[in-house]
């Protein structure tokens, strides 16, 4: 065909990431949250990556692993570029060469073998359901809301409470739902940001096939990472995807969500990047918190579109930062402390982990706690079994 490049494989780096579209305005680096603590300057990478001869050198720079995948650079870019994907493209070169950090290699291998990056057996993915009567989806049975749990929520003892409380809440509200159970497999969000193109492509194909099989009206994701990944990287998915806060806000409006108790606490909500900046879901989590009697909802100065990243995404769970400068999660917790918040509420498993670490590091355990919204909602009904969440 007249020498036209027909496949993406034939695209140059510059074409793939539209590098010539860049006007070097600096909004990407200007908005990048990690610049306060690392040397990452994403604009420079967009500029330098145009030179193919430099790609190898660029891919060996440690900063490419500092990106948290928050997407601020992409959201702010006036020319429609996604600067962070240039960094991911460079990470891909490293992954292809097989010279990744062992932690990254293990996470990717585990995702390939076991369907999760946490090196847990596929067979134990449903262990969080122990003691609960959970409806499991059957391909031939139609269901309104098909739940996608997320690897972190399914396996991490700290955040599995999110799924457990969700089941209790759905049962109580009489919602038509089903979970995927052990058939569920990683959405690939972190595989994508770690730069394992091939594996990600395979995951998207497999998951699309799996999810399309079910006769569900919609998919409800518990993690914003799965939610946004499905929405942006799964073009052939045959049903809409919601984040759970959207479903619950809907139930709230239909008056199907009634909380037994109130909670007389000052709460500040931290917008997860994948939920807010990337998917525009700002109001629903706030509506849920405001619906709780006694809650005084306060706002960070940097809220909503200006929310500060917690550094949990972009594969950062497997790449330790070298920087000795204060973590953004700690900055965030200090801001919450200045607001005299009792609770930092979040709607993302990664945010729970990073912010809670920051509370511990700063020694604020007595003054405040970090809680997933589902945890709080569970506590209102007295449904939470403390021993279960520990």
């Amino acid at each position, binding site marked *: 065909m007249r020498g036209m490049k027909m496949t993406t494989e034939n695209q140059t780096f510059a074409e793939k990431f539209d590098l010539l579209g860049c006007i070097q305005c600096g909004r*990407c680096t200007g908005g990048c949250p990690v610049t306060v603590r690392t040397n990452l300057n994403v604009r420079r990478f967009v500029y330098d990556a145009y030179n193919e001869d430099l790609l190898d050198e660029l891919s060996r720079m440690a900063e490419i692993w500092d990106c948290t995948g928050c997407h601020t650079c992409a959201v*702010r870019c006036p020319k429609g570029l996604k600067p962070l994907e240039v960094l991911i493209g460079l990470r891909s070169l490293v992954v292809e060469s097989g010279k990744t950090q062992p932690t990254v290699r293990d996470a990717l291998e585990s995702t390939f073998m076991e369907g999760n990056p946490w090196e847990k057996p596929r067979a134990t993915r449903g262990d969080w359901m122990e003691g609960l009567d959970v409806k499991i989806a059957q391909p031939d049975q139609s269901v309104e809301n098909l739940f996608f749990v997320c690897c972190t929520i399914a396996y991490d003892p700290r955040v599995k409470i999110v799924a457990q409380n969700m089941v209790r809440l759905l049962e109580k509200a009489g919602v038509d739902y089903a979970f995927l159970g052990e058939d569920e497999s990683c959405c690939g969000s972190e595989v994508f940001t770690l730069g394992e193109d091939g594996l990600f492509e395979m995951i998207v194909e497999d998951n699309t096939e799996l999810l399309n099989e079910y006769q569900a009206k919609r998919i409800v994701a518990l993690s914003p990472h799965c939610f946004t990944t499905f929405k942006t990287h799964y073009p052939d998915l045959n049903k809409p995807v919601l984040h759970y806060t959207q479903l619950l806000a809907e139930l709230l409006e239909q008056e199907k969500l009634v909380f037994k108790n109130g909670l007389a606490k000052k709460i500040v909500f931290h917008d997860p990047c994948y939920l807010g900046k990337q998917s525009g879901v700002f109001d629903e989590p706030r509506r849920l918190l405001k619906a709780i009697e006694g809650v005084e909802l306060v706002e960070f100065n940097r809220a909503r579109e200006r929310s500060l990243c917690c550094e949990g995404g972009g594969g950062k769970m497997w790449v330790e930062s070298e920087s000795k400068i204060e973590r953004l999660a700690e900055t965030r917790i200090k801001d919450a402390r200045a607001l005299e918040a009792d609770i930092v509420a979040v709607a993302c498993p990664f945010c729970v982990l990073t912010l809670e670490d920051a509370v511990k590091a700063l020694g604020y355990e007595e003054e405040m706690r970090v809680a997933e919204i589902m945890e709080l909602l569970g506590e209102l009904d007295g449904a939470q079994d403390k021993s279960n969440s520990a």
Partner: protein
Amino acid sequence: MTEKPKLGVYICHCGINIAATVDVEEVTEYAQSLPNVVVARNYSYMCSDPGQLLIKNDIKEHGLNRVVVASCSPRMHEPTFRKALQEVGLNPYYLEMANIREQGSWVHEDREAATAKAKTLVAAAVAKVRLLEPLTSREVDAEPAALVIGAGIAGIQAALDIADAGFKVYLVEKSPSVGGRMAQLDKTFPTLDCSACILTPKMVDAANHPNIELLAYSEVEEVGGFVGNFDVKVRKKARYVDVSKCTGCGDCAKECRLANRFPNEFDEGLGKRSAIYLPFPQAVPAKYTIDPEKCLFLTRGRCGKSPKCVDACRAEAIDFEQKDEIVTFKVGAIVVATGFDVFDPAKKPEYGYTDYPNVITGLEMERLVSASGPTGGDIVVHNGEEEITPKEIAFIQCVGSRDQSVGNEYCSRVCCMYTAKQAHLIKDKIPDATVKVYYMDVRAFGKGFEEFYDRVRREGIRYVRGNPSEIFKRGNKLVVKVEDTLTATPLEDEFDLVVLAVGLEPRSDDRKIIDLLRLSQSPDRFFLEAHPKLRPVDTASDGVFLAGCCQGPKDIPDTVAQAKGAAASALIPLARGKVAIDAQVAEVIEDTCRGCGFCVSICPYTAIELVTINRMGHSVEVARVNEALCKGCGSCSAGCLSNSIQPRSFRDRQILPQIAALGGIR
């Protein structure tokens, strides 16, 4: 057709535009072989004088009665060649053009295939030209008056020029006063003359001109007819003030129960006005207006015992019984000068415009720095805690311009310079202030602009190359999160005041004007001119012209220049007193028309109506074409169920042989 067709075929090289890809000799030879072709020639530029002479001489010498020119699209040069035919006494509509450039050489690389295609296109033109009929274009009288919509500087200037040329102008302005955006500006770049000082005399001139009828606080509701003969309906909105009595004293506004309770639009909400108000002190007409959405008496039916404005007005001008008034008139031409909106920075929440009172727009800065503004020209802002005179001030360029994320890809053309001007004015008023301008490119393209930019930098305004990404608050300071791209340094700079150099956008109420005048929009959503270079003030609607920022962002000199251009163009039909009506329009065969009205509903130009005729003693409805409105697009013809409506020169019997020839059928 009585006489035998005698054809001349002329193949143009267009320099190398055609000749490099199409074998013009081969096409010429082929044309010579076609039926009825007497002469076929090729030439380097058929449109040139010698090229035209070639055709004219052949017509005279060989008695040609049909001409085919194989060259470019007819858009540009069909009129050229028609004129050539006419000059030697041949009907100008005996011409057919074969487009072997845009549809041939420009889009093909293969010489052989392009040559073959050119031959086919020539054969098709030859097949059609034999069947063309002579047509005559008509002229109708033009109404010696113009409508100008919008009375900002563009509308005022266009109205003054047309009126000065001796023609009646109806100047319609939606808001209570003329003046538009320019009236809101403090000084103008790069000369620093006071905007009001140069504008207000023109406002007054427009209002007092014997040839201008000013319809302020009015909106155009309907426009019918066509170039030379537009029927216009305007709604004069009730001011609830008798303008013949109002002296503009302002006692009413002082006494109003809701005095100084509402954000003043003219001051971009920084100042307050009453429910009865004069938008600004120099307003023209200097007559008060009652805001019907705010006035207690108009919204609730009562205002205390009696409305205080009524009590206060010594001229007894308040009239709550006043109703909207409909005015109708005829004009020959229309100038659209409806202006622009400024970008709403709430669409970029990362700049915190709705959260922080000391993040303001450039237009708000104009009011703040203006001696006639809400602070009397003192630059004071509220930082969330207290009123302060800002000492550290930032300007952010390109807010809402050059930005796909908000759907505005274009450069707004004025922000770089108004920022430089405002920075200068701030430095003038607060000499110890630090002023930084965050930019990505400085575009100082106009006369005196670069010199002004140089001057401002030397006054100590610091230009930092980097477009800020975010504003948040730390203590009582605004933090601008930005990268200095020249040193690759990410910064968190602190300020007391941030001015967002907001760009220009099409007006949010443009849709109404688009529907009214059948205008088109360019991809940037501004009104589309007929040709980006050669017809910059014309539109696709004949007799409708554009002036000012409704066509695209521009500064005052460019706006005034364009307004003068639009006025000159509008004056052509008015001064001539006649407008030509193209002959290539649709024609109804009344004998077979069934009056179904399908064509009426199809016609995009509302050029067809049903009329009742007498057909052998019976009253029947048939379609009738308003030839002045018809563009000859042929939609009606394609839709007609009985083949009763066909565009001249594009009748079935003319184009079917042409199509057959394209398919290789002779």
